[in-house]
Structure formats: C-alpha cells, structure tokens
C-alpha cells in the first residue's frame, strides 16, 4: 500500500460520472438509458450494446430489484473501508433489466438470491453518495 493510495479519497467524481453521484447525494438513482431503443445500462457506456446507438442519457431508475447474489468481503481494497469490515457485497437485478454491483446498506439484515431490495443512499464525502441496497 503506497502512501499515495492510503491518502486517496474513497471516491472521486469526474466529469462523466458527476451527474450520477450528485443525484445519489439527492437520493435519486440515475442510470444511462439509450434514447434510441430504451435499453438501460450499467456501468457507463459510450455506445448502446443493444442497438449500437450513441445517444445515451441519464434517466431516473426505480431503484427496485431483486438480489442476484451476495458475498461477504473480509478484506478491503481501500484503507478507508477497513474499519467497516466485513462488507456485504451484493449484485442486484433492477426492474429496468440491468444488473448492478453494489453493497447492502450498513446494518441491513442478511439476504439470499431472489430477495426483493430497494436502493438507499450512503453519503461518501462532500456532495457524493453511494447507492446501496436495503431488503424490503
């Protein structure tokens, strides 16, 4: 672990992702949607993998879905996460037909594949938040 890495913030928005993180901080989940064919995407794409179109724009997603799978991480890729171990990683199949990789909300009860969940938001630094999931 280099000193530079230890000092790095957990998350930094850039120009492309800023709308996503800013919306999350306001409690809204944005995903890219193809204006040509309507397909939703995660993570960010420059070209729609369904129709090949290039008109992709952020749109608000339902935030509702079911657990595809889950895994409990006992090691952290970033020092800022060490105090929070173990981390409940979760892959969620959203109603929009998109599979997102995320984490369960802190103190959420255990889940199994197929469990219904909804998005909630966890602040990460100034003006940024992470979408995480809570069983419903």
């Amino acid at each position, binding site marked *: 672990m280099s000193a530079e*890495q230890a000092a790095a913030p957990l998350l930094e928005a850039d120009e492309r992702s800023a709308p996503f993180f800013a919306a999350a901080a306001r409690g809204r989940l944005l995903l890219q949607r193809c204006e040509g064919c309507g397909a939703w995407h995660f993570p960010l794409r420059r070209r729609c993998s369904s129709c090949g179109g290039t008109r992709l724009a952020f749109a608000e997603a339902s935030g509702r879905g079911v657990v*595809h799978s889950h895994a409990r991480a*006992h090691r952290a*890729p970033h020092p800022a996460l060490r105090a929070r171990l173990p981390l409940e990683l979760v892959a969620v199949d959203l109603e929009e037909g998109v599979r997102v990789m995320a984490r369960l909300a802190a103190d959420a009860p255990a889940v199994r*594949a197929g469990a219904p969940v909804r998005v909630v938001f966890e602040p*990460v630094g100034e003006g940024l938040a992470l979408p995480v999931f809570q069983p419903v």
Partner: protein
Amino acid sequence: MPRHPLRAATAICGLGLTEVGRVYDRPASDFAAEAVLLALEDAGLERRELDGLLVSAGMSGGPDLSLALQLGLPELRVCTQLNAYGSTAAQMVQYAALAVASGMARHVACVFADAPLRRGESTGAAYAGGRRAPRGFGGLGAAYGYGGPIPWYALAAQRHMDLYGTTQDQLGAIAVATRAWAAGNPRATFREPITLADYRASPWVVEPFHVLDCCLVSNGGACVIVTGAERARDLRRPPVYVHGMGQAHRFDLGRADLEVATRTPALESGLAAFAMAECTPADVTVCQLYDCYTYTVLVTLEDYGFCAKGEGGPFVAEGRLGPGGALPTNTGGGELSSFYLWGMTPLSEAVIQGRGDGGARQVPDNRRILVSGNGGVLSHHATLLLSPEAA
C-alpha cells in the same frame, strides 16, 4: 458421421516447465525464454526447427513478441501474442494445431510466463492491491469493496449455493481432493494434506471463499510444442494427441436476464470438443480443470455434463475427484495447491499424465484427458481432449 479430419492430426511433442512459485528477480520474459528452450530439449528439436511462436503474457506485462529475438529465432512462419486470460493456454494449442494441420507451420511453441510476485509483497497484492482505484465510475467498485477477481467469483459461487443448496463443505471437498493430489507432485507449492476441518478453519477472504478456496499466485513459465501426428512419433517423447477442441465465450453485459454465475461457456466449448473427439463425459478418464477457485471446478463439471446442473456439490463430495476416486481431477495439485500459471497449470499436467510421467500421482487410465481453460469471470472458455493413443 465421418471422423473429424483434425482429430489426432496433431500432437503435443514438447513440454517445458521452469521453476515455479516464489522465484524472484527474474522478468517474465526470461521465464518464457527458458520454458521454450526446455520444451525444445524435451522434444529433441533444434531451435532452428521451431517455425511457430505463440506468446501469452500474464499480469506482470511480459513476455511479448521480442521473445523471438531473445531466443534467436530470426525466421518464423507463425508468430503472435494472444490473450483470453485463463483460457489462452488451451486456445494456443488449438491455434497451433490449426496452423500445423494447414501447413502454415511445422513446430509451434505455445508459451506463457508471468512474474507478478515481488519480494516482500503479499500474494494478494500481486493481483489486487497494487493499483490505485480510478476516478469516477471506474472507482465505484473499489468504493463498494470490490477488489481483484475474488469478489466476482464469490458472488457466482454464492448464487449457486442459494439456488441449488451447494454447501461450504462441498466446495471444501474440492480443496481437500486437490491437495491430496499435490502430495504426489514434487513441484507443488503446498504438499501437506488438509482435512475439511483445516478448510473450515482457514481464514475468510470473501465469503463463501476461504483462503483455501483460492488459487496460488506464482512466478514461472511453461511451454508446449505442437506438431503433426506423424512428426510427433519421430520425436524423443511419447506424443499426446489432440483429439478434440472447442471454445466458447459468454459475457456479463450487465443484463439482468443473462445467467452467467451458474451457467458458463464450458457448456458450448465442451460440446464442440466432445463432438470432435467422438466421446462423452462418461469416456473421460482424467480431468485437468482450470481451478482459479474451488467453485470453478464445480460449475465446469456441471456444464461439461458430468452431472446435472445444480448437482455439482454432491458430485464432488465423497472423494470422487481425489486419488483413488472415480474421476481423478487436477492430479498435479492444480492451481489451488501446486502452482498458478493460468491455463498452463492444467495443460502441463495433462501432458505429464498423457506421457505416463506422473510418478506417484500417475493415474491408472490416461486414455481420455479433458483439459479446460477459463478466463475473465467465467467468460472465456477453451477445452481440449487429449490422449496418448492416436486411434
């Protein structure tokens, strides 16, 4: 149905394995050069007879096409670098077989080398910890707690457990069986037998994976040489014929309707290889399966058709895969216990078993050897069916 024209038309005639494991202060390119020279010597070939070179690099960046210069090979008829991660080694044999069968080249070396381990650094650092997470969306995974490939495979394994009732001890049975084989391999990194109790007591990495569910990280190089069947019979060592080959690739595109965690491209890749070799899983006498994680073995066996989907857990339990079991699998100790040179780990052990060179771990019946390569997160798959018999 007529016999496939390429069935047993080519053979592996040379194998070169360098020292593997915590071998420091050598670049991957040097391991690669040594592996090629060892394979040439093993086959009884002169360097000038080599007219094909396929190169595969691992995580540490080398080797590349400059290997031809290092080896003093001024003229080649086939030369390129390939990468489909853990499926590359089996793929290289396939492309080499095609090149030889078409007459493009006569002796094609397929080489992989990697040196991700650095003195004083942990194994985990070699694959996950050394990189700073990128800004923006690219940093999202690390902010959640995803680092390296382990969480992705852990999610896949946990889904199998949730859907089919696969148990922790069934994953553990694979680790135990593989370690039992490693005891017979002088080259293996870990040779001390383990029990299910040892497995359960090993630290968690990402549940459902203990440390003992995860492969090693190794420095080293391996090379096989492919030539025509006739030519192989004239060379120093017994030929190991290529009877069947297949590939398939399926990707997690982020689409919720695609099942990639519990259903892998081993299915299509295996069907192609079995069709070419005119055999079925029931004919396979020994398996060398890519075992980056215990779960990879379980799901690969299911998708090849050794058991029904969801029944991999009971199938691997009760010692079936270990020494004396009905389906000897990863007889050199695999990537879990022996060494991790991507797809060269199963492939090199297949050649050793095919030649009858397994010593204490030699299987009694080596007539149908199944080799798998797996890359990405269960995304890229390649299959070989090998045999010491040409018929």
